[in-house]
């Protein structure tokens, strides 16, 4: 599974670093590092929806507060 977090300016200001850090922690604590490829990109062209995160090319709108729920519903549940 390919998960890409937008680290462009607009998403960065909305907390993409915190989203990245949480996802990294969650992926490693769930030992999913070999199943999920976490990547970054500068701008997905949907700045108003930031922080933009794509899972296998499907776009989601995430914030530092919703990252854990997002991980559980859209990432963890699908890789297992």
């Amino acid at each position, binding site marked *: 599974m390919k998960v890409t*977090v937008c680290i462009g*300016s607009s998403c*960065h*200001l909305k907390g*993409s*670093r915190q989203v990245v850090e949480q996802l990294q922690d969650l992926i490693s604590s769930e030992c999913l590092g070999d199943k999920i490829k976490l990547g*970054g990109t*500068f*701008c997905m062209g949907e700045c108003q929806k930031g922080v933009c995160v794509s899972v296998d090319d499907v776009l989601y709108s995430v914030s530092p507060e919703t990252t854990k729920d997002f991980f559980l519903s859209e990432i963890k549940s699908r890789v297992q």
Partner: protein
Amino acid sequence: MTMDNKRVFDTKVQYLKYKVLREVARSAWNGTLLEDLLDIPMRIVPGKTPTMRCCVYKERAILAERVKIAMGGSRDSQNVIEVIDIACDECPAAGYEVTDSCRGCLAHRCEDVCPRGAISFDHDHTAHIDKSKCVECGRCSKVCPYSAITNRVRPCQNACKIKAISINEEGAAAIDKDKCISCGACVYQCPFGAITDKSYILDVIDLIRKSRSGKDYKLYAAVAPSISSQFTYAGLGQVVKGLKVLGFHTVVEAALGADLVACTESRELVEKGFLTSSCCPAFVAYIKSAFPELEEHISHDLSPMAAIAKYIKDSEPNAKVVFIGPCTAKKTEVMKKEVRPYVDAALTFEELQALFDSRDIDLTGLEDDVLDNASYFGRIFARSGGLSDAVSEALKEQGIDDFELSACACSGIEECRTALMKKKRGVLSENFIEGMACTGGCIGGAGCLTHGEKNKAQVDAYGRQALEKTISDAVSVLKLL
């Protein structure tokens, strides 16, 4: 509608150069460049009344040369800086001369201070300098109470501190391509605009076109942090928006590459014990040509520009990157084989202004966009001393406390030369040379629209506005790859 751009630049020479770039770009967008080529000089200098030279025909002949340089210049020469022979006014270059302000006084301070006995007096007591004896030390000029002794040097030769400019048989300036470091000091200083940097603005237009608004590939603009002191008639947010209107996918701070460089360069410094910086391509070129024995000390790091472009291309191989900054030497750097794969073209702020206006993009009418990738420390690379501060911070953040940084921050090529000379002789006490070829650092670059007292403060203020306060936080998102 575009504003009166004369106010955007320091000098009328820059304004003229801008007009040529704008017209060339406009024709390129219209797809009529070939048909328009011979008309562009006429568009810029219409009518019969000369305003710059002896006649409109000479003005247009020079403009035709400028058009050629705006289109990439001579293909025979790799040098980015070129002399337009017919534009060179062949300024006097006689050195120290006594002018008719000499009053024929009794004191003769000039004679007393001359170390070579080069000064004599004629029957009406006025001074004369024997050029066969004069060593151009300038002491006579300093002591004359009437300021009657002047130094006639060509502004280009005075600007070129590495002495790469000589005078050819025709009396025009000539650049020694083996010495030239493409810093652009002569470009900015020549009052006739006879020395200029080749432009790759057509390559950038081509890159924008072929990306087809991101359908074929994404085009990234990596902007130098010195942009914070430029385009001040609009806001930085409007410049970012303007770049997207032009057709760039997005804008990324080269300063984030500077944050990366601060991390790697600080570790390299600890490992080697002594280092000279590699951010400024003109400084690197200067070491290679004038101090080859010190070449081994040049940091192996990519420059911030190349570092951020490499990151973009590693994560998205299809992407294209244009660097936009204050620097003419970057145009040479992007041709180097270790940088070429990452950066597709380099543009100056001057050229960016021309590009905006060629599309009639009025920045002041645009909404604000945002630009925030780097830390305070990455951003202050734009001014002298910033890189040293960042390396010091990076050492601290990485917990390296058994190494004490002693930095020699050199602003301008003369300070660089002094530090390198000391190192060569083994008498330099510092363990790190931060070398910036332009005075004040990148904010003094030849490709800036304006140069002012406030630039440094503007860079520092921009640095403080960064969301990330530490280098480690700024680069943490890059470790995703």
